[in-house]
């Protein structure tokens, strides 16, 4: 229960001005980067230090009140939203880079450090932090850890999990544990690997040690444009088949290109192309990278590129990348509301899946723009719509589900990097059976037995029998009778995540 006494206690820890209870203030935290989901938290707390975080979590534990951690709120699955039964713990004030060790190429940061600022701070040492989600100018490292964030350059360098060495974590009961070791491989199970991507379900990271990489000595960025989505999709497979691993391989379709070209981030992408590919090659020597770039350029031309060009200098490269990275934010130019999806398919199926998505868009008369990590087969269909039109949101939801089912049908999965959060709870039973979901919950309960940290996210907790029959789980699981029993075994005492959210 959230009582006046609890609010007073919170103010005693962080100072009254860092506790937000006014409805207007709480409303500003009701959404993240996927604004179709809306939850107004009961209280918002903004601690200023690690010790304050620990004290807040302990106080909430003694009151049995759920807590939801949040960074910059740029997530795209509704993962950082708290409802009226929970306290939202905002970590933006924990934004100190505690140290950079250039010799061992390690940075120790607080969770509220903005991703791009870490690379800026590391640059004087010739180092950078590799995972580069498109929101990197705003999102926090803590949020990246929670979501196991990806980004264009993760094709070659791996996602967040490959770059986190050690963590200090506050568990739901207020205990502090240390995972991993910045000095090297810890013995025992890979708990860091387990924690990264747990979407705030296992605890709250208060200190994060990450790996820094030397800045590549040579970089080439290519832009290729295509007259059909299918050709562009086929060129992606051809690039990968060439044996060269690009640092990044991104695709944008026409609708997306035009939105970007209308914005301050206009990069000079051809507006008449059906799709553009952005390919980056990097490495230790200019000669090697130039040779690779020439090979890739030839492959692109042989596979239907209408034209290709290489960024002349770092300024043009930056422009090409800024256009790509801000594309999601430019979608507001198409319509006032937006749903972005996140699915992964085998690369070779990209041409077919893109056509299926276009067909679904046509069926439901919706505008779908594609901007995605093609090299990873990680799709991001953006559906633009006007939420004020009656019935349109329902159509968007149906189309979203069909897109997701199409991705699963070709052997894909429901999220590449945005996480499950609230948004994808409804898709979880499409790929996991009751036993797998129950196992996930059991793992979560090892960290957070009372399921008080970010409750109601990731694993759908209500009666698993609802899923049986309707679902076609891929994993091999128990029969329906047993599924019923497992489902009934835990009625789910925690607030359940419902996805029937109000339209924006």
């Amino acid at each position: 229960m959230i009582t006046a006494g609890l609010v007073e206690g919170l103010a005693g820890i962080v100072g009254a001005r860092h506790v937000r209870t006014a409805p207007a203030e709480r409303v500003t935290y009701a959404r993240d980067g996927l604004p179709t989901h809306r939850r107004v938290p009961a209280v918002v707390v903004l601690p200023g230090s690690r010790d304050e975080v620990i004290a807040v979590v302990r106080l909430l534990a003694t009151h049995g009140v759920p807590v939801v951690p949040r960074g910059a709120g740029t997530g795209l699955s509704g993962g950082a939203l708290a409802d009226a039964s929970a306290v939202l713990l905002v970590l933006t004030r924990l934004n100190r880079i505690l140290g950079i060790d250039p010799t061992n190429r390690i940075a120790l940061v607080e969770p509220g450090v903005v991703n791009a600022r870490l690379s800026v701070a590391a640059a004087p040492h010739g180092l950078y932090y590799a995972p580069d989600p498109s929101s990197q100018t705003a999102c926090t490292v803590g949020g990246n850890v929670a979501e196991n964030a990806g980004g264009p350059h993760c094709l070659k360098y791996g996602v967040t999990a490959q770059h986190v060495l050690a963590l200090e974590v506050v568990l739901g009961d207020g205990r502090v544990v240390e995972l991993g070791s910045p000095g090297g491989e810890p013995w025992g199970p890979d708990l860091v690997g387990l924690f990264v991507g747990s979407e705030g379900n296992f605890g709250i990271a208060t200190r994060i040690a990450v790996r820094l990489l030397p800045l590549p000595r040579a970089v080439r960025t290519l832009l290729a444009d295509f007259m059909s989505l299918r050709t562009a999709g086929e060129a992606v497979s051809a690039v990968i088949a060439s044996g060269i691993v690009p640092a990044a391989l991104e695709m944008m379709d026409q609708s997306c290109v035009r939105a970007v070209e209308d914005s301050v981030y206009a990069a000079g992408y051809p507006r008449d192309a059906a799709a553009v590919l952005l390919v980056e090659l990097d490495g230790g020597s200019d000669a090697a990278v130039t040779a690779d770039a020439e090979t890739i350029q030839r492959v692109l031309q042989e596979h239907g590129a209408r034209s290709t060009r290489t960024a002349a200098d770092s300024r043009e490269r930056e422009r090409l990348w800024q256009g790509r990275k801000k594309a999601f934010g430019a979608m507001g130019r198409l319509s006032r509301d937006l749903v972005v999806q996140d699915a992964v398919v085998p690369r070779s199926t990209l041409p077919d899946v893109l056509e299926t998505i276009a067909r679904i868009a046509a069926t439901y008369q919706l505008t779908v723009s594609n901007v995605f990590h093609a090299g990873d087969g990680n799709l991001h269909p953006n559906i633009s719509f006007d939420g004020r039109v009656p019935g349109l949101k329902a159509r968007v939801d149906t189309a979203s589900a069909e897109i997701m089912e199409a991705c699963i049908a070709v052997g894909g999965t429901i999220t590449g990097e945005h996480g499950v959060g609230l948004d994808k709870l409804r898709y979880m039973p499409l790929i996991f059976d009751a036993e797998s979901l129950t196992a996930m919950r059991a793992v979560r309960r090892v960290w957070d037995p009372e399921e008080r940290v970010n409750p109601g996210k990731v694993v759908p907790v209500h009666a698993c029998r609802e899923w049986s029959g309707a679902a076609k789980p891929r994993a091999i699981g128990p029969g329906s009778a047993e599924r019923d029993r497992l489902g009934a075994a835990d009625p789910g005492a925690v607030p359940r995540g419902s996805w029937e959210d109000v339209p924006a």
Partner: protein
Amino acid sequence: MSERGGFEALDACVHCGFCLQACPTFLATGDEADSPRGRIELMRALEAGELTPDDAAVVVHLDRCLGCRGCEPVCPSGVGYGRGIEAARALLATKRRPAPLARAALWALTTPGPSRIAYTLARALRATGIPSRLAGWGRFRFAMGMLAATKPSDGRTLGRPDGKRRQPPSDSPTVRQSVALFRGCVMDGLFSHVHDATVRTLEVNGYAVREVPGQVCCGALHAHAGLREEARRLARANVAAFGDGDEPIVVNSAGCGAMLKEYGHLVAEARFATRVRDVTELLAARGPRPGAPVDAQVAYDPPCHLLHAQRIADEPYRVLAAIPVLRVVSLPDAAQCCGSAGLFTLLEPAMSRAVLAPKLASLRTASPQVVATGNPGCLMQLGAGLAAGGLRATARHPVELLDESYRAAGYYA
């Protein structure tokens, strides 16, 4: 004025959050309610009637917005935040009277009769040298520092001239382009030396500057305070005063320039807005002509209403580049607001100083001799901050520096 009063400019926001790190108040508090995205949420709720204009929390967080519009140039969807916040403030103004301090300041600074007395008294006080001795932190002492910062330079701020005499500009075009000078209120009352420098440097570059009678304050301070009707009244007076010719209207205050360029939205007077030019735009269009070398280090600090609202980035650098030997240093957070924001520095002193602090810290590291910025509020805020922080640099308008260089070159002989 549109049917929805400016709120429609917010429709394009899709909540991506790319504006967060461009917002000085979000950087100061880390609170979404102090961010552009959070305020847009509040403004949308205001328009929809879900929150009321007398809601104390709404008022606090919207009042805390500097109006620097640093969020606009980073927004991929082109959200018109500035228009939205003015619409919201106009709505707030229907439920409350402006703060007494804001009212008093507007009256004293912008009303033709009283402001003449106020500025005369201020200049007299400035001349005693007392304000510069009192400059410091705290509300009163900071205000004294702001007044001290308006003092004209004694001409020895920069390195000594090299003593060489240069030819007066004999190659100036015989037919000079006529431009009309916008004098404004604070600029005219406390920075008339910048107007003088503007006239001289423009003339060296082939312009003939014409004085326009009957002009009044631009109305920016009123619009930002939600007093739209007063802003409209002033706008109409200015439109009438400057007539309907084609001659450019030259402005040396970024805040006024941004406002004049938005008269199209305020009083549906699109043509007037197209004539408005910042002084650095006009100078850069002519080169400008190089002056005498000046051996000094200058940090250029772009005013928000020049960089974000008018999107003028390169021209001030080109003006400074016309001064040989002058070294212009770039600060990492130069594009961020200094915390002046019109009356904001008086009305929200705590937030204003919090926004100023990181800028002062990087100025301390760079330790330039001069901080150049083209807006009266910024000149006063930075000048007061430099004095309070014990930094030796002074704040100057870029055309003042060019003017000194021209004087040393003998162009005015």
